[in-house]
């Protein structure tokens, strides 16, 4: 591929990796705090999965940019300030209650599976291979999230109220999920167009939500910011996730 395409694809992959890494960090925060032991374990393992996916995307970006495959992912994870991250705002929002975290994951995972289905067909073979690997794992993520929707949505009055509140709070952040990613405009045939994923996502999500007696809010104020704009929560998140690496830059783990 030409250099210009390489740079565009690398930007795209870094944005994908940023989504995964920030969500992984949020999930990991449930470790030791989740409402039941099984979910404590589940969220820790979801976080491990997403961490692995972020590393795969970053490694592919490193290859395209002729960077070191070992060091570049660490550089991206630990030595960028909030303004340099390209994740969607949805993933950096604080965990809130259990309903919020489960629903956030679900909304994100359904999109991820749709995107991976497209990426599996990528004309760039290393990307198609990584997508095939990740796709299989993400099917389990969606399954996990979907199992929780009816449990909470149809559970008790309290669990339903919390789920509907979480949905109302999360919904304004979903339009940003369907913005074209950085670099995407020049990658036709290499990646699926992100706006093109919205219809399928909406059909699936609305149907699953309805079966759990949950409804997207009719009126919501979309927080459709560009990916260059981060929430105020990113600084806190990064100060925690980067603290150790920045405390001793020379350390080897």
């Amino acid at each position, binding site marked *: 591929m030409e250099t210009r395409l390489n740079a565009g694809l690398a930007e795209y992959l870094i944005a994908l990796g940023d989504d995964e890494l920030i969500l992984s960090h949020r999930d990991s925060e449930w470790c030791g705090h989740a409402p039941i032991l*099984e*979910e404590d*374990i*589940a969220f820790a*393992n*979801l976080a*491990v*999965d*997403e*961490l*692995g*996916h972020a*590393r*795969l995307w970053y490694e592919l970006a490193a290859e395209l940019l002729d960077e070191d495959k070992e060091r570049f992912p660490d550089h991206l994870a630990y030595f960028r300030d909030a303004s340099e991250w390209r994740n969607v705002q949805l993933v950096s929002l604080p965990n809130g209650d259990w309903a919020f975290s489960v629903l956030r994951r679900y909304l994100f995972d359904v999109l991820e599976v749709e995107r991976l289905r497209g990426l599996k067909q990528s004309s760039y*073979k290393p990307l198609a*291979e*990584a997508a*095939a*690997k*990740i796709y*299989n*794992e993400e*099917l*389990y993520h969606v*399954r*996990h999230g979907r*199992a929780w929707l009816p449990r909470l949505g149809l559970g008790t009055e309290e669990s339903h109220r919390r789920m509907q509140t979480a949905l109302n709070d999360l919904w304004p952040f979903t339009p940003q999920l369907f913005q074209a990613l950085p670099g995407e405009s020049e990658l036709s045939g290499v990646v699926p167009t992100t706006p093109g994923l919205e219809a399928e996502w909406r059909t699936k999500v609305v149907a699953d939500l309805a079966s759990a007696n949950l409804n997207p809010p009719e009126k919501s104020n979309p927080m459709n910011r560009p990916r260059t704009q981060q929430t105020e929560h990113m600084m806190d998140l990064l100060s925690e996730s980067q603290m150790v690496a920045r405390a001793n830059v020379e350390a080897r783990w």
Partner: protein
Amino acid sequence: MVRNPDSRGAISLQDIWRALDDVVDPEIPVVSLVEMGIIRDVMEVGGRIVVKMTPTFAGCPALEVMESDIRARLEKMGIDLVDVVRALDPPWTSDWISESARRKIKQIGLAPPQVHGGDFINVLDAPVTCPYCDSFNTTLKNSFGSTPCRMIYYCNNCSQPFEQFRPL
């Protein structure tokens, strides 16, 4: 053929496969990386031994340990020019877990994954046999267990919770 420095003669690729069968899966130490289908290929390229491995799960935290265990085992037979390369294609599938490994996994109370022939989604709702009493009367409790590659089940027959190695 690779020359062995302690002059036991030539080592064949078959010898190397046999040696690699001693390298155990760090998360399930009763089975080897060969039995798990994690080691995909062993080649000799320009005097170096290239071991091709594929991760069971992309984020598997044990990959580095596996790599260094492979190197250490080959070093023990005098082979130190070793490249361990990771490949994602074709993606690892639990169908590659050998019969012997399935038996050993079951012996430690971990239900082996159902064989699916390519599309694991189709077997996800199929019954899982309890590794303790062989009953089909089991219920899925969680699609994530103590590692990303395990699920938690409960046996309604012998009242024993157990984990299954996930089909993938």
